[in-house]
C-alpha cells in the first residue's frame, strides 16, 4: 500500500505540474487575444455561467434559450452592439463558484456575467464581481442576501428573491380560513427563506405555525414526516420543494391520504416543470409565483409562440427569466448607445427600467430585485391556472441592503 501511494503521488505530481503548465500557457494565450482591443466594433461579451450538467441542466438550458431569443428578436444586437456569448458549466458546485466566475471575469474578460441557478454558486459569483466591479445579472437564484445584505451597484436580479413568491401565500392561507399550518422544506437556504416569508405574512395576520419540519437536502424520503403531519392534523401544509423532490413529495402526500384532508400550499416551484410527472396527485394544489405558463397577456402569448417555434418545446419560467435578463441589459445598453465604458449611466438606466415581460410589466427595486406581481395559481387538469393576483407590485424588503435604505 505504501509503495503504491508514493509511486502514485509522484506520478500524479508530475501530471499535475504538466497540466498546470499547459493551463497557464492557455490562459496566457486567451488574455492575449482578448486584450488586443475593445472598441465599439467588437461585440459585447456576455458570459453565461449556468448549470449545463446535473440536476439543474434543464434550467440552465432554458435560461440560455430565453436569453438568446431576446437577442435574436432585436436582430442579434442589443443597444446597437453585436452580442457574443461564452458559456461555462458551473456544475451547481459552490466550491468552484469563485474560481469559475474569475475564469469568466479575468480569463474571458466578459462585459456582463449572467448566472446562475444554484443560490450557493450565485453568492460566490456575487463575491467575485464585488472585487472586480463586473456587471452581473442573476437569472434565477433566489438567495436573499444577493439583493439584501450583500447587494451591490453592479449586481441585478431578474428573477425573484426566495422570500418573494412565498410571502403572499401567508395572506392567501389566512384568507382561506386556515389558522394552524405545518411548514416543510429541505434544510437549505432557498427553503428556509421561503418558509420564513410565508411565516412572516401568516403570523402577522394571527395564524399559527404548528411545526416547522426540515428535511436534510437533497433527501427525498418523506414518509416519516408525512406520518408526523397526519398526527398533528393541521388546517393546511405549506412547502417549498422543487424538481425531482417536488414530484416525489406531491405523490407521497397524495398516496399517504393527506391530499383529501389537508390542503397543500406551496411556493410556485412545487408545480413548475413537474406537473406531468406529478399527474393527478397535483390537482388542486395552490401555489404563488411571479409567472404561470397560462398567463393571459399578449406578450406572454407571443413569447411562448416564438420560443416554441425556435426551440421545439414549451417555454417555462426559467426561459422567461433568461429572456428578461437580455431585455434589461438591452435597456441599459440602449441608454448609453452601446458604450460599456459608461457603466454608471448604464446601471442608472437599468435601475429605472420598466421591463415588458411575459410575466407582466415589472420594475427594479433600489436593491436591484424585481418589483413584480405575484400570482395565485391552482393546478387544474395538469396546468397551473392563474386564479388571481396574490400581491401586486411586491418588492422584497431587502434587509441589510445599504442601497435600499437611502
Amino acid at each position, binding site marked *: *500500500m505504501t509503495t*503504491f501511494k508514493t509511486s*502514485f503521488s509522484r506520478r500524479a505530481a508530475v501530471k499535475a505540474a504538466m497540466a498546470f503548465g499547459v493551463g497557464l500557457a492557455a490562459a496566457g494565450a486567451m488574455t492575449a487575444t482578448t486584450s488586443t482591443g475593445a472598441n465599439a466594433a467588437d461585440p459585447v461579451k456576455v458570459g453565461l455561467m449556468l448549470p449545463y*450538467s*446535473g*440536476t439543474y*441542466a*434543464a434550467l440552465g*438550458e432554458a435560461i440560455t434559450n430565453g436569453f438568446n431569443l431576446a437577442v435574436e428578436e432585436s436582430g442579434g444586437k442589443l443597444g446597437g452592439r453585436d452580442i457574443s456569448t461564452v458559456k461555462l458549466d458551473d456544475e451547481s458546485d459552490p466550491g468552484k463558484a469563485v474560481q469559475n466566475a474569475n475564469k469568466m471575469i479575468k480569463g474571458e474578460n466578459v462585459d456582463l456575467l449572467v448566472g446562475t441557478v444554484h443560490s450557493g454558486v450565485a453568492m460566490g459569483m456575487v463575491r467575485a464581481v464585488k472585487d472586480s466591479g463586473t456587471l452581473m445579472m442573476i437569472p434565477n437564484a433566489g438567495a436573499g442576501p444577493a439583493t439584501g445584505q450583500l447587494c451591490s451597484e453592479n449586481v441585478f436580479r431578474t428573477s425573484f428573491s426566495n422570500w418573494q413568491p412565498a410571502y403572499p401565500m401567508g395572506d392567501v392561507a389566512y384568507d382561506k380560513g386556515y389558522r394552524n399550518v405545518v411548514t416543510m422544506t429541505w*434544510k437549505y437556504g432557498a427553503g428556509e427563506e421561503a418558509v420564513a416569508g410565508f411565516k412572516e405574512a401568516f403570523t402577522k395576520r394571527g395564524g399559527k405555525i404548528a411545526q416547522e*419540519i*426540515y*428535511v*436534510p437536502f*437533497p*433527501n*427525498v*424520503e418523506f*414518509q*416519516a*414526516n*408525512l*406520518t*408526523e403531519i*397526519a*398526527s398533528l*392534523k393541521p388546517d393546511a401544509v405549506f412547502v417549498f420543494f422543487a*424538481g*425531482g423532490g417536488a*414530484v*416525489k413529495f406531491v*405523490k*407521497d402526500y397524495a*398516496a*399517504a*391520504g*393527506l391530499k383529501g*384532508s*389537508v390542503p397543500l400550499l406551496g411556493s410556485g416551484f412545487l408545480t413548475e*416543470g*413537474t406537473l*406531468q*410527472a*406529478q*399527474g393527478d396527485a397535483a390537482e388542486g394544489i395552490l401555489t404563488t409565483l411571479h409567472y404561470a405558463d397560462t398567463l393571459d397577456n399578449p406578450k406572454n402569448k407571443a413569447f411562448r409562440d416564438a420560443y416554441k417555434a425556435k426551440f421545439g418545446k414549451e417555454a417555462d419560467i426559467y426561459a422567461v427569466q433568461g429572456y428578461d435578463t437580455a431585455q434589461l441589459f438591452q435597456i441599459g445598453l440602449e441608454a448609453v448607445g452601446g458604450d460599456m465604458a459608461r457603466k454608471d449611466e448604464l446601471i442608472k438606466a437599468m435601475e429605472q427600467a420598466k421591463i415588458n415581460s411575459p410575466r407582466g410589466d415589472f420594475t427594479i427595486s433600489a436593491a436591484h430585485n424585481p418589483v413584480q406581481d405575484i400570482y395565485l395559481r391552482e393546478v387544474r387538469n395538469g396546468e397551473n391556472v392563474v386564479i388571481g393576483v396574490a400581491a401586486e407590485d411586491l418588492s422584497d424588503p431587502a434587509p441589510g441592503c445599504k442601497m435600499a435604505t437611502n
Partner: protein
Amino acid sequence: MDFTFFLIQALNGVQYGLLLFLIASGLTLIFGIMHVINLAHGAFYMVGAYLVWSLTGVFDSFVVAILASIVCAAALGWVIERFLVIHLYNRDHLDQVLLTYGLILVLNEVQRMMFGSDVHSVAVPEAVRYSIPLTDMMSYPVYRLLLAGICLALAVAMYWIIQRTRLGMWIRAGAANREMTASLGIDIRRLNALVFAAGTALAAFAGMIAAPLSSVYPGMGDNVIIISFVVVVIGGIGSVKGAFLGALAIGLTDTFGRVLLPEMSSVMVYALMAAVLLWKPNGLFARA
C-alpha cells in the same frame, strides 16, 4: 407520539430499511466476493429507473417492463465486467474507485443525452394503486407494503442461494480464497462476471421498483450511493446478513430521528455508523 403513530413510524422505518437493503445488497456482494469497490452502484440504480420508465412506455405493462429491464441491466453489468472491471482485480482499490467514478460520469452523461434533463414518473400498477386507511387522516399505500414484501423475499432468496446452493458455495469459496477455488476447477472468471451482473441487476432492480414511489430524474443515483455505503460499512463489508441488519437499523434510526430529534436528523445515521464502528471497527458481521 401516541401508540398508533409509533407503530406507523416503525412500519415506515422497516419499509425504508428494506428498500435500503435491496440497494446496498448488490454493493456488498460485489465487494465481498470480487473485492471491487463499485462507486457506480448508484448510477446503476438510476439506470434501472430510466430503463423501467422508458420500457413501461413500450410494453404498456409495469411487470413486463421490469422483467425486460432486469435482463438489460444484467447484460450491462456483464459487459462492464468483461471489458472494464476485469482489469481491476489485481489492482489497488484506488484504481477501482477511479474507474467506477468515471462510470458515474459516463452513465450520467449518457442518461442526459438519451432522456434529457426533465423529471419523469412511472405510474403505480393499477392493481395496487390504492391505500389502506390507518387513522382518520393517514393511509398507507399498498405499493409500499408490496415493496417491503419484495425486498424481504429477495433477502431470503439471497440468503438461500449463498448459504444453501452449490453456486453459493462456489461464490463463498471464491470470496475466501480465489486462487484455491480456481485450482479446484471452478471458473472464477465466469463466477465474477455472474456476480457483477447480479449486483448490477440488484441495484437496477431497486431503482425500478422504487421508481413509481419516487420520481425519475438525472443524478438520482448520486443520492443513494452514500447511504448505501453507510449500510455496507455498518453491516460489515461483504456480509449480506450484515447489510440486512444495517439497513434496518438505518431505516429505523432515520425515521425516528426525524420525528424525535429533528434538529439532529441529518447526522443521526452517521452517528449510528460512528457508534457501530467504535464498537466493532469492521462492522457488525465482518468476515475474518
